[in-house]
């Protein structure tokens, strides 16, 4: 099996010979080539350099699946401001729809700006240069996008004071997601991955999580399946406890093919719900174990996940995306632990 086949097979619960690894390496590749962040996100998005960084990291680490470009929030199309520190990670500096009337001045298809064209070109280059690798399309989730557009605090206030506005902006965000997915194109990836830190029952409460996140996830999943792609959902928050079992079950019932749990979840609690229903993704905490090491702890924590999930429909990831600054040696240690486990 090629890495691509291995990854897709596990996502679709068809089994495979070894544990696939997906790092959701949004900007970590920049470190391998010593590329300044603002060199990729310059006046024009440098798709060649982006693809070069993605592939250089894969060449160093050997993971099965990659994200097809060096990522950012790409909300400039709606008037958002993203800062690109030379040796840092892109971050949002302003919410474009802090004044809600601005939403009416835009169409979701505005997302297809020069930046997204550049990012799509990077996906194309990666696909072409490495046809045996799985390419995962990273898309911000419905509430995540709404929070970025509106400002997360304002959005949360909206859910209490102006729920119609909160719903409208989440609907707008869902259309932005669809437009982005269609534009990058199913031919340039193997799986759509919904990155959704703010689609989070700890932030929204279970009721609003169902209303704002799951309603739209059902819609997005149908849309992605229409493009004949599988979809992985990665909300943050707690899902592994018994009083959240219904919430996890409802998330799976949206039709998703894979569920990735975030940090502070017990893998066994997640597995109880996902087993035979969808694949499961997750793993070592990116901000504690993987960032700080030491090697012994990384190996220990990786094995904790593998002992519970290694024989299941499981793809090893980290708890969150990987970005520049993270010691690459630590990630290598994690991948070596996976290889050792599979050899046993």
């Amino acid at each position, binding site marked *: 099996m090629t890495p691509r086949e291995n990854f897709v097979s596990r996502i679709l619960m068809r089994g495979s010979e070894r544990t696939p690894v997906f790092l959701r390496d949004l900007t970590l590749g920049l470190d391998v080539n010593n590329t300044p962040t603002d060199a990729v996100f310059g006046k024009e998005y440098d798709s060649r350099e982006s693809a070069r960084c993605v592939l250089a990291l894969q060449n160093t680490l050997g993971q099965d699946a990659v994200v097809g470009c060096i990522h950012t929030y790409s909300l400039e199309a709606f008037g958002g401001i993203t800062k690109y520190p030379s040796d*840092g*990670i892109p*971050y949002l500096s302003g919410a474009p729809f802090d004044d809600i009337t601005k939403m009416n001045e835009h169409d979701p298809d505005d997302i297809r700006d020069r930046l997204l064209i550049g990012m799509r070109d990077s996906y194309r280059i990666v696909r072409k240069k490495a046809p045996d690798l799985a390419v995962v399309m990273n898309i911000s989730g419905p509430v*995540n996008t709404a*929070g970025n557009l509106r400002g*997360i*605090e304002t959005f*949360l206030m909206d859910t209490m004071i102006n729920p119609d506005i909160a719903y409208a902006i989440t609907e707008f965000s869902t259309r932005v997601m669809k437009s982005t997915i269609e534009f990058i194109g199913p031919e340039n990836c193997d799986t759509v991955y919904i990155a959704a*830190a*703010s689609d*989070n029952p*700890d*932030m929204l409460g279970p009721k609003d999580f169902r209303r704002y996140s799951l309603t739209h996830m059902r819609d997005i999943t149908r849309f992605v399946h229409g493009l004949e792609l599988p979809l992985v959902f990665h909300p*943050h*928050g*707690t899902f592994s*406890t*018994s*009083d*959240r079992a219904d919430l996890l079950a409802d998330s799976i019932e949206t039709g998703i093919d894979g569920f990735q749990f*975030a*940090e*502070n979840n*017990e893998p066994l*609690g997640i597995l109880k719900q996902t087993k035979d229903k969808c694949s499961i993704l997750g793993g070592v*905490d990116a*901000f*504690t174990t993987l*960032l*700080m090491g030491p090697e012994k*702890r990384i190996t220990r924590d990786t094995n904790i996940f593998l002992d519970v999930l290694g024989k299941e429909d499981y793809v090893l990831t980290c708890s*969150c*995306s990987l*970005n520049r*600054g993270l010691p690459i040696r630590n990630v290598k240690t994690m991948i070596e632990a996976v290889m050792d486990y599979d050899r046993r």
Partner: protein
Amino acid sequence: MTEDEKTRVVMIAGLSGSGKTRLIRSLLDGIDTGRTGVIVNNEKSERELDGLCKVVDSFPIRTPCARPRQYRYRIEKMLDANDLGLIMTEPPGLCSETSAPVLNPIVMFKKDSVTVGPLITVMDYTTIPVKGINKDLTDEFKLFNLIFESDCIVVRKNEHLSEEQKKRVSSEIEKINPDACIVFHSDDEKGMESINKKVFSDEIYSRPLIY
């Protein structure tokens, strides 16, 4: 830069309404605040502490994965603009997440200019269930995580607790984190002395970084 010249960052964590800002206010009382900065997680707390130390900033709510990255920038920004010996800070976010992830990037990337003081978690004693903490329930699982990562647990609103009740609370905490220093604190109690010792000692803390 010598260890003495580095800025000490002390995290005061705890669920919403647990008394984090109040504890910071108490700590500011009676120290040289000319080189002290505070970062809180809402504007109301920022207003409450305004003028009580050299600089106060508020870091509004952030998603779990954005907060460790942006917290680092926030610390850098405060240090660039001010000569500070101490920064006391509430964690950004919803207060229900663990704080170790936001401290780690500081340790990793700012170790030449910053040392990490204790991670202090403030909690109302009533949040600790009488039957013990059940990790299979969401709220108690979060409480478990907060206790597990802390160097020091400050138990507030304990004025009417009997010694026996205090023992029970201590025992529940120790089951989760036997290394944590437990302080039963009211503003007028000598418990402040223990917290002060933790905050202002030269001890280097590592629990959030290694668990």
